[in-house]
């Protein structure tokens, strides 16, 4: 019995030692205060990093005027009050000053008279549980020789509900929401102007041609899920296209990549046929699923385009490498092709293979343009408002930043850059 206990103790000791060595240990922290020969670093604090999910710690301590360019600070962390220390960071005394913390001025009051360091705990301990305690200590050295050391301090992680550092994003969102409601109200009362979009005028021509030739129309919604903006825009355009197809008594085929998009499109097309007064012409197989594998989808749709030789093909939505594979086959078969995508990398291929191409934002505008719905027009107005904000911000921003930088008005530059801080 005693022998078994001894073996167990030995095995446990080996595992414990292994874990400690695996964590790149440093000499264990002394339980007693630093010896008199080593100066103490006073004012060292560790706290939960504000405005995060609770996975980081914020360490602060005053800048020591006696520090030289050779002074190096080393930060240690551990889950234990003593022992098991892991080196978290090492940096020169001139680095990690309070004002270096990457937070905007309204959320962080960084001083040049203190050091501030953010330590990502999951880098050392894996997933950080809520309200977990961690210990920190720091030491400074000159040319490899220990100069000063702090006492270990403890902090507890805490998840925050509000990201004050993202306040600028929230303010912009609130402004946009207010503008949206104003635009909806204005659109319902007086209507909103939208300039002509060339490619969309060709839709009716393409559908008319398909009707005359007695050939089907293909409509592709792209290869992204329903949550993407381009797919939502595509379904809006599909509604208008399907309405015209129903009015002309032509036939539309919509091969799908995503089953959820297919389900939404089924409802959209059915609604369009009803609005056009042709519910009898609607068929369940207008929309059909092909494949959710990118290139097998492309190969299959290419085969359909080649065999059925449609008179018109619409590519509306987000497309990747399959863009040219699809558009080229349609062009070879002589179809009128109208494309619209916000995939910048694929636009050049649509330019070369399609008759009309809606570039990026024009795709989003198309739904509003075609339907004339006040709600959609209002959304477009809000987008325009956003573009106006960007244009004015860039124009006045570069003037202010350039003057500020030239005149060395660092505070002005700092404030302007913080205002547009993204995440």
């Amino acid at each position, binding site marked *: 019995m005693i022998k078994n206990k001894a073996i167990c103790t030995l095995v446990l000791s080996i595992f414990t030692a292994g874990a400690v060595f695996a964590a790149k240990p440093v000499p264990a922290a002394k339980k007693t205060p630093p010896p008199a020969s080593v100066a103490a670093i006073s004012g060292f604090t560790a706290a939960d990093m504000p405005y995060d999910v609770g996975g980081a710690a914020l360490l602060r301590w005053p800048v020591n005027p006696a520090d030289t360019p050779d002074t190096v600070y080393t930060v240690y962390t551990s889950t234990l009050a003593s022992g098991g220390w892991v080196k978290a960071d090492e940096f020169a005394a001139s680095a990690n000053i309070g004002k270096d913390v990457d937070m905007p001025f309204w959320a962080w009051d960084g001083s040049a008279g203190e050091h501030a360091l953010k330590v990502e705990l999951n880098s050392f301990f894996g997933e950080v549980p809520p309200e977990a305690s961690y210990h920190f200590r720091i030491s400074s050295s000159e040319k490899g020789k220990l100069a000063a050391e702090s006492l270990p301090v403890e902090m507890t992680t805490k998840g925050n509900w509000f990201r004050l550092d993202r306040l600028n*994003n929230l303010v912009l969102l609130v402004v946009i929401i207010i503008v949206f409601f104003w635009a909806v109200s204005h659109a319902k009362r007086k209507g909103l102007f939208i*300039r002509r979009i060339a490619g969309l005028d060709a839709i009716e021509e393409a559908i008319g041609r398909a009707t005359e030739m007695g050939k089907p129309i293909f409509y592709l919604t792209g290869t992204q899920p329903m*949550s993407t903006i381009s797919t939502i825009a595509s379904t809006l355009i599909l509604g208008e296209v399907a309405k015209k197809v129903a009015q002309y008594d032509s036939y539309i085929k919509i091969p799908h990549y995503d089953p959820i998009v297919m389900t939404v499109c089924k409802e959209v097309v059915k609604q369009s046929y009803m609005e056009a007064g042709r519910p009898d012409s609607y068929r369940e197989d207008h929309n059909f699923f092909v494949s959710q594998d990118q290139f*097998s989808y492309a190969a299959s749709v290419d085969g359909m385009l080649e065999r059925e030789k449609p008179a018109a093909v619409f590519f509306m939505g987000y497309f990747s490498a399959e863009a040219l594979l699809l558009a080229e086959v349609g062009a070879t078969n002589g179809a009128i092709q109208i494309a619209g995508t916000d995939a910048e990398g694929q636009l050049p291929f649509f330019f070369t293979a399609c008759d009309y191409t809606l570039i*990026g934002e024009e795709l989003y505008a198309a739904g509003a343009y075609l339907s004339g719905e006040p709600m959609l027009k209002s959304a477009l107005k809000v987008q325009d408002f956003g573009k106006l*904000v960007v*244009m004015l911000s860039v124009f006045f921003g570069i003037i202010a930043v350039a003057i500020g930088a030239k005149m060395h008005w660092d505070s002005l530059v700092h404030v302007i*850059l913080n205002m*547009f801080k993204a*995440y």
Partner: protein
Amino acid sequence: MSETWMIAGAWLSAGLTIAIFSFLYKDNPFFKIAEHLYLGAGMGWLFQVSVFSVWGPKIWTPVSHGDWLVIIPSLMGISLLTQFIPKLSWISRYGFTFIMGYGSGLAIPATLSTDFMSQILGTVQPLSLMASMSPFAIFNALLVAFGVICVLFYFFFSVEHKGHFQKVSNIGIYFLMVYFGAAFGNTVMARFSLLYGRFDSLYASSSARNFYATQIILAGMVIYFVLHSFFGKKGPAEGEAAH
């Protein structure tokens, strides 16, 4: 893997590659075989990915370990399948509503940050180093800012693009075209890289070790097309074209 299987793999790889490439000539039975095989294999692959990477680790394992909360999102996912039962299809709206709400909630803050803030900051920030910038770097930063404003104006739908507005908008199009040209060249280079990969595979399959798979399959297809053009039935489209 035995030598026989390696040779069989080379024949299959070369055969399917050439069958897909044969579409460049015209639609034909070889392409149809490869197309349907590809479609079936693709869906089969996705099915096993769904089973082993989604259903297994994200539903079955947590539930078998007592994490019953996983059942709630699973039921919402299953609700989408009620679309196939007309009487119950209304249930699917709960799943769809959640997907749309979740998607919007995720996309709107991210879009604000990336499409607004990042764009503005990225354009303005280079000039914060103006004191130490070379004249060319300053010109470059200003050119980018000018381009951003002109391109954005092209996408401005609230005013008619006439007069001076038209000129600004046209400059925006030129900036776009420069970008599209660069993107086109970049993507074409990447596509050529893929093409070389296939050619390399065909070359490997053409060796004596693989019993000249590439040459034999290619020759077989060419013979088929020649014979078909002489003796095959003319389709209605070809017949019309001949008149």
